[in-house]
């Protein structure tokens, strides 16, 4: 039995799969939706069209590290936030700085992080990042004590709407201008 394969139906299948998936779908995931073989280039083209179809709607199709997903357009977040009135707790500066070091210098040990921040790494800080699944241990450095090497996860990229680390602003952007002029 041959499945009906006009473009509109292919797009509908992709749309319903994306809308009902709790995680982003990769191209491989989406290829599995169809009994017959489908080229990745075809999928990309269909996804592009789907993205345009939704342009005037409340949701948008975006690509992140682990695949594609639908999400509410940013202008609606202020309304959606009212559904969950409990106050958002912000991460402390220690947490954000530790995260930034891991993101930009990975893989790094606690020692590397302490070297840059100039203070001991609070284990509570690491725990928050590990629990959020934004960082994980990817190995040990072969020095005395075999310290763990930390790196950022794909989940981190997904949560920040990034496709890869290269989407982060480059480190050079943060070297202060006055210092550069004097060199």
């Amino acid at each position, binding site marked *: 039995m041959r499945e009906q394969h006009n473009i509109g139906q292919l797009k509908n299948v992709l749309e319903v799969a994306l809308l009902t998936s709790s995680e982003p779908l990769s191209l491989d995931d989406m290829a599995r939706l169809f009994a017959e073989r489908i080229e990745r280039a075809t999928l990309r083209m269909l996804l592009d069209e789907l993205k345009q179809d939704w342009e005037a709607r409340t949701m948008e199709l975006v690509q992140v590290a682990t695949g594609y997903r639908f999400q509410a357009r940013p202008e609606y977040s202020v309304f959606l936030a009212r559904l969950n009135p409990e106050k958002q707790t912000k991460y402390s500066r220690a947490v954000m700085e530790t995260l930034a070091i891991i993101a930009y210098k990975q893989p790094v040990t606690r020692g590397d992080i302490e070297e840059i921040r100039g203070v001991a790494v609070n284990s509570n800080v690491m725990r928050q990042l590990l629990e959020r699944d934004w960082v994980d241990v990817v190995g040990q450095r072969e020095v005395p004590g075999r310290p763990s090497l930390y790196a950022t996860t794909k989940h981190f990229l997904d949560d920040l709407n990034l496709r890869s680390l*290269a989407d982060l602003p480059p480190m050079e952007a943060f070297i202060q201008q006055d210092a550069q002029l004097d060199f």
Partner: protein
Amino acid sequence: MFLTNTEIKIKGETLNALPHDLYIPPDALEIYLDAFEGPLDLLLYLIRKHNLNILDIPMADLTRQYMAYVDKMHAIKLELAGDYLLMSAMLIEIKSRFLLPKPADIESEDDPRAELVRKLMEYEAIKLAAQKIDEMPKVGEDISVASAYYQQISDVKPPEFSLDDLADAWRNVLKRASHFTHHKVGKAELSVREHMSIILRRLKIDKLLEFSQLFDVAQDGIPKLVVCFLAILELAREGLLRITQQAPFSPIYVQLNSHE
């Protein structure tokens, strides 16, 4: 204290008006102390607030101001003072090296402040990067992901796959890769760091991999393959990987560098 009626000169220029936030009432210190993330953060605060040139730090002034904060800190929060005292010692050491006469046989000694400046600038860059990441919209805060309800049906079989398909795909990749050879060099550095993490993660699961298994030639374009290769070299350079080959032309194996 450091506010007097005499004329104040900074690098030969008379200072007519004080920077508006130069003076911090002592009572406010207690609030500020909690806000600092460590000695580097406190030093950066002093340098930026007093408009000091980070590349030409007046060590005596900075050390004096720094010590005033640390003394206050010492009085109210003893357990915090350790890291800060170490920095005090470093600042005083740098100043004392300026005061000592240089032996004639040392031609060009590095500026004793160089290491401190490097650290301050690195920390400042990370601090700004952290602010930037903090401002980015995040899932669960500013991003709401779609999730329509449906009843789970599990009946999907993965598509059949043959060797010919792989050969086709590989030919396609080669063809496509040759069309898309441009990539941004500026961003490669970060991609290499990312791939280093990916490779370490894989080796943690697979223990030992043949060199070629680290490359997904069927899916990755040439730039990505190159980045992957650079990541392997960088990991080997940092001593995190062991790469072995029994004899010439035999398979090359890659594993985590471990003493066990």
